[in-house]
C-alpha cells in the first residue's frame, strides 16, 4: 500500500489543500493584526479617554459658605467646626453589637437606630452612614475613648453653619438646612453644586444671597473599580469659600431692639435717613436658627409654630398694620402741598364729627377745642384730620403717601416674604371691592384706619424721607461697592446737586418744615403725645409721632366703659406705634416701632424710641469710622 498510487494521490490532495488553508490563515491573521492596529494605535486616544472615564470618578465636597458680618465686621452667620459620627458598614464586624454600643454611649433613640438601619440598606457598603451630625464635645471624646471597641466607626470633623447671636438676626438672615427636591430644582447653582449633606439657605438673606454665599465645591478625584468602590485618591482640588457679605446692621442696636421687645410681639426698624442703610431691623418674638441646622425636633417646632405671638412671621416686612396716627404727618403734608390748607388753618374739635348721620370720634372725648395744624399734630387730634382729609380727598392723599414709599416694597428682591401693603383710593376700591368710595372712608383714612395697611419698614422709610427734607432714598441692608457716605448724600442735598438715587418729593420745603416742627412739638412740648419719652439733651433730642391702631371697631358700649388695657382681651387691644427721627437739630436716623396689642403708642411704643436713640447716637462716631471697611461685590 505504501507505493500505491492512490496513497500518493491522497497525500498530494492533503498537501494541496493544506496549502490553500495556510493562505487563508495568513489572511485571517492579517485581519486580526489590522484590527489590533486600529484599536490600539488609531483609536488609542479614544479608548484611553474611555478607560479613564471608567476608572476616575470625582467626588464633590460641600462648599464652605461665605460669612455674613454686621457693619462692624462681627460675624453674624459663620462656620463652625462640628463633630460627626460616621459608620462605614463594610468595616463593621458585628453591626448589631456596634449599634448597641453606640446606643448606650450616645443615648440614641430607637427611631434613630431604625434610621441608621434604613440608610444602611440604601447605601453601598463602603459609603458612610451619618449616625450623628452634631456630636457634643463630650460625646466626641467618649467615642474616641472607646474607638478600639467600635470597629467601622469614624469620628469626623466638618464645618457647619453657625449663628452666634442666635435669635436676634433670624428674620434678617433666615437659616440654612438640608434642601428638599424643590429647593434644588429651583436654583441652578445649587443644582450644580449640590452634594448630599450640603445645606442651603431656606429663608431670608441666606436664601436670596445663596449664589454669592454658596462657594465652590472642593473636588476629590478617586480611582474606582467597576463597582464604584474607591481604590485610591488621585487629586484634591480645593474649593473656594463663598463671598463674605457685610450688612448695614449694627449688632448692638439689634440686640437692644430684641431686649426692648422681649416677650412682646412687635417690630423695630432703624434707618439712616440719607444713605438708607438699615441699622436695625428686628421682629419679635424670634427663634433660634441654629435649631434648624441639623433638623429641628418636632416638639421645638410645634412650640415655635403654635406660639400666639407668631415668631415665624417677619413683622418688619410682612406684618401689615393700620398706621393709625403715624399717617398724620403725611395727611397734613399732602393738605399743605395741595394748598388745601395753610399753616394757620384751624378746626374746632368737640370730640366728635357727624357726617351723613355717622359719628366720627376724636380719641379725646371732651374734644380739643380750636386746633391749629401744629397743635393737632402735637395732640394727635382726630377731628382736625377728619376735616382736612375730607377737604383733601383720598386720591390726592394717596399720591403723597406713595411718594413717601407707602404701598411699595422697601427692600424689593432681597426678601421674598416682604409685603407691599396698601394705600387705598377711589379707583382701588371700585376695582377691587366693586363699590364706590364713601366719604366716611376718607375720614378714617385720614387718621390711618380703614383700608390702609403698612409694614413697619415702610413707616420707617416714610419717616426718614420726612426727616431728610423730603428726598427719596434707597433703603439697603447690604454694604455694596463704594457706598455713599452719610456726608456725601447730605452735602448733595444741601447743595441741591442731587445724586441720581435721590429725587425731590415735595414742592415746597417750607411745608415739610411745618410737619417737622409739629413732630418736634409732639415729642418735646407739654401735652405732646410722646412728651414723657422726650430727651432734653440736644445731642439725643428727637421728634416723633405716636400712633394707636385699632384692631377692631370700638363699640358704643366699650367707648362708654373706657376700659383699662389689662381689662381688654389681648387680641382686641390696640397696636401701639411710634415713628421718630433724631437728633432733631441735625437729623441722621429714623425709626419705626410697633408693639402689637401694646395699647396706646405714647405708653407702649414711644418709650422704646428713647432707649434706642441714646444708643444709636452714641454709636454714630464708631459707625462712621467703619465706613472704609473692605467691600464685597454684590
Amino acid at each position, binding site marked *: 500500500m505504501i507505493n500505491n498510487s492512490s496513497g500518493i494521490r491522497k497525500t498530494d490532495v492533503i498537501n494541496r489543500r493544506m496549502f490553500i488553508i*495556510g493562505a487563508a490563515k495568513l489572511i485571517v491573521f492579517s485581519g486580526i493584526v489590522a484590527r*489590533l492596529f486600529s484599536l490600539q494605535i488609531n483609536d488609542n486616544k479614544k479608548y484611553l479617554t474611555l478607560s479613564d472615564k471608567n476608572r476616575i470618578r470625582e467626588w464633590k465636597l460641600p462648599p464652605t459658605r461665605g460669612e455674613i458680618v454686621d457693619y462692624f465686621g462681627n460675624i453674624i452667620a459663620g462656620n463652625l467646626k462640628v463633630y460627626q459620627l460616621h459608620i462605614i458598614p463594610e468595616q463593621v464586624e458585628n453591626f448589631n453589637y456596634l449599634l448597641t454600643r453606640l446606643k448606650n454611649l450616645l443615648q440614641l433613640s430607637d427611631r434613630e437606630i431604625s434610621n441608621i438601619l434604613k440608610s444602611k440598606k440604601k447605601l453601598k457598603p463602603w459609603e458612610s452612614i451619618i449616625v450623628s451630625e452634631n456630636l457634643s464635645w463630650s460625646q466626641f471624646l467618649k467615642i474616641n475613648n472607646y474607638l478600639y471597641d467600635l470597629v467601622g466607626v469614624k469620628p469626623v470633623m466638618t464645618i457647619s453653619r453657625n449663628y452666634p447671636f442666635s435669635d436676634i438676626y433670624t428674620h434678617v438672615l433666615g437659616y440654612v438646612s438640608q434642601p428638599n427636591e424643590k429647593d434644588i430644582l429651583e436654583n441652578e447653582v445649587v443644582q450644580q453644586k449640590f452634594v448630599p449633606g450640603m445645606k442651603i439657605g431656606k429663608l431670608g438673606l441666606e436664601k436670596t444671597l445663596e449664589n454669592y454665599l454658596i462657594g465652590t465645591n472642593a473636588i476629590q478625584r478617586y480611582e474606582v473599580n467597576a463597582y464604584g468602590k474607591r481604590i485610591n485618591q488621585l487629586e484634591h482640588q480645593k474649593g473656594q469659600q463663598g463671598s463674605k457679605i457685610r450688612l448695614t446692621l449694627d449688632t448692638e442696636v439689634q440686640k437692644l431692639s430684641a431686649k426692648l421687645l422681649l416677650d412682646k410681639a412687635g417690630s423695630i426698624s432703624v434707618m439712616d435717613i440719607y444713605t438708607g442703610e438699615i441699622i436695625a431691623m428686628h421682629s419679635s418674638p424670634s427663634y433660634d436658627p441654629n435649631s434648624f441646622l441639623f433638623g429641628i425636633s418636632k416638639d421645638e417646632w410645634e412650640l415655635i409654630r403654635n406660639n400666639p405671638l407668631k415668631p415665624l412671621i417677619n413683622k418688619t416686612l410682612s406684618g401689615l398694620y393700620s398706621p393709625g396716627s403715624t399717617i398724620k404727618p403725611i395727611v397734613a403734608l399732602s393738605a399743605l402741598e395741595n394748598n388745601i390748607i395753610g399753616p394757620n388753618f384751624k378746626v374746632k374739635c368737640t370730640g366728635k364729627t357727624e357726617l351723613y348721620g355717622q359719628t366720627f370720634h376724636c380719641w379725646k372725648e371732651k374734644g380739643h377745642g380750636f386746633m391749629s395744624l401744629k397743635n393737632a399734630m402735637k395732640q394727635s387730634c382726630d377731628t382736625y384730620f377728619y376735616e382736612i382729609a375730607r377737604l383733601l380727598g383720598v386720591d390726592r392723599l394717596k399720591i403723597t403717601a406713595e411718594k413717601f414709599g407707602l404701598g411699595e416694597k422697601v427692600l424689593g428682591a432681597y426678601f421674598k416674604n416682604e409685603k407691599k401693603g396698601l394705600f387705598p383710593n377711589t379707583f382701588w376700591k371700585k376695582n377691587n371691592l366693586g363699590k364706590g368710595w364713601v366719604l366716611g372712608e376718607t375720614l378714617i383714612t385720614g387718621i390711618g384706619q380703614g383700608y390702609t395697611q403698612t409694614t413697619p419698614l415702610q413707616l420707617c422709610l416714610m419717616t426718614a424721607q420726612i426727616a431728610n427734607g423730603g428726598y427719596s432714598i434707597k433703603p439697603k441692608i447690604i454694604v455694596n461697592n463704594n457706598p455713599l457716605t452719610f456726608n456725601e448724600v447730605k452735602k448733595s442735598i444741601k447743595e441741591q446737586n442731587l445724586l441720581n438715587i435721590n429725587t425731590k418729593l415735595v414742592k415746597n420745603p417750607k411745608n415739610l418744615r411745618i410737619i417737622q416742627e409739629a413732630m418736634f412739638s409732639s415729642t418735646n412740648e407739654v401735652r405732646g403725645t410722646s412728651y414723657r419719652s422726650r430727651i432734653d439733651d440736644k445731642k439725643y433730642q428727637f421728634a416723633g409721632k405716636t400712633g394707636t391702631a385699632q384692631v377692631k371697631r370700638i363699640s358704643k358700649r366699650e367707648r362708654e366703659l373706657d376700659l383699662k388695657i389689662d381689662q381688654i382681651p389681648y387680641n382686641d387691644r390696640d397696636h401701639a406705634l411710634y415713628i421718630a427721627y433724631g437728633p432733631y437739630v441735625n437729623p441722621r436716623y429714623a425709626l419705626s416701632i410697633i408693639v402689637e396689642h401694646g395699647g396706646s403708642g405714647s405708653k407702649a411704643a414711644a418709650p422704646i424710641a428713647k432707649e434706642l436713640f441714646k444708643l444709636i447716637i452714641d454709636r454714630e462716631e464708631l459707625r462712621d469710622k467703619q465706613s472704609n471697611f473692605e467691600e464685597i461685590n454684590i
Partner: protein
Amino acid sequence: MFQYNKLNSELSFFQKVKKLDFILIFCIILLSAISLLVMYSTDGGEILYHTKSHFIKLLTFFSLMMVISFFNIKLWHITSYFIYFVIILLLIWVSAYGIKVSGSQRWINLYFIVLQPSELMKIGIILCLAKYYHRLKIENVNSFTTIIISLSIIIVPIILVLSQPDLGTSILIALSGLIVLWLGGVKMKYFFISLISFLISLPFIISFLKPYQKMRILTFLDPDRDPLGAGYQIIQSKIAIGSGGITGKGFLKGTQSYLEFLPEKHTDFIFTLFSEEFGFVGSICLLLIYSIIIVRIIRIGAISRSNFSKLFCFGFAFAIFVYIVVNLSMVLGLLPIVGSPLPILSFGGSSLLATMIGFGIVLSAKINHKQMIA
C-alpha cells in the same frame, strides 16, 4: 506495555529525544511562562489561586505531553476510535450526571480535576477522523456512505455539546472535524453547498437559540445597544485593548482589569488583559509565537510519511488557529461572544489538557515521522 515494546523497537530513548521538535517545545514553554505572568497579573500582582493552580496544571500537562510524545504514533492511530468513543461516553455521562454551573451542565468532577469532556472532544474528533480518512481510498472519499459516516462522527458529539448547552465549543468541534474532511479530499462543492444551505437555514437556527445566545448575537451587532448589560463585555474589552496603545500600560498596571472592569479575565478575556498591559507590540509578539507553533505543526505534518500523521497535524494546526482566531475576534469585537478559551494562556484545566495532548501527539508524529502506518 506489550504494545509499547512492540511499537518502539526501532528507536532508543536518546534517539527519540534528539528527534523532538525543540522550537515547538520552546514556544510552548514560552507561552506557558507568559500565561503564568498574566495569571499573576489577574491575581492582582500576587501569587494566588489562579497562578498556583495554572502552574500546577501546566507542569502536569506538560509532563503528560512529553510522555505522549514518546509513544509511537502507531499507538495513537490504533486507539483513535477508542479514544473518540470514551469521550462520547464521557459526554453522555455529563449530560446525565454533570455539574451544573450557571445554567449549563458541562463538567465532571474527577476530584483531582474538574473535567470538561467537550474540550477533549476537540482533539478526539481530529484523531477519529484522521484515522477514518487515513484508511479511506481516494476513490471512496466522496461516496455517499463515507460522507454520511464522517458527518455522523461530527454530529453526534455536537448534539451532545449543544445540549449542555455550549455553543462555542460545539462550533469549534464542528470546525475541527470539517477541516479533516476538507483535507481528506471531500469535494469543494459540497462545502459550498452546505455553507449556502447553512446560511439559508440560519434564521431557522436562530429561532432555536437560547435567549442569552440571541442577545449575544444582537449585542455583537451593536454593542452600544445595552452598554451596561449584554454589551458590557465587548465594550470593556475594546476599551482595555484600545487603551493599551503601542507599548501597553505596563505589567500589573492594566487599570481595566485591575479595577475589575473586565469580565472573565482569567479565561476568555485573558488576551484583553495581556494586550492592555503589553500593548500592540506585546500582542504582535504573542501572535508571532502562536504562528511559529502553527507553522511548526504544519511542518511536522508535511514531513510525516503517514497520512494519519499528516491529517492529524494539519487538522490540529487548523484547530489551534481557529481557537486563536475565534477567541481574539471575540475580544476584539469582531465576533459575537461565544465562550472559547485561548490555547495555553486561558485558565482552565480541560482546554489545557486537550491542547497538551494534541501537542503530545504532534511531537510523537515528529519523532516517528518516517514511520509508515498500514
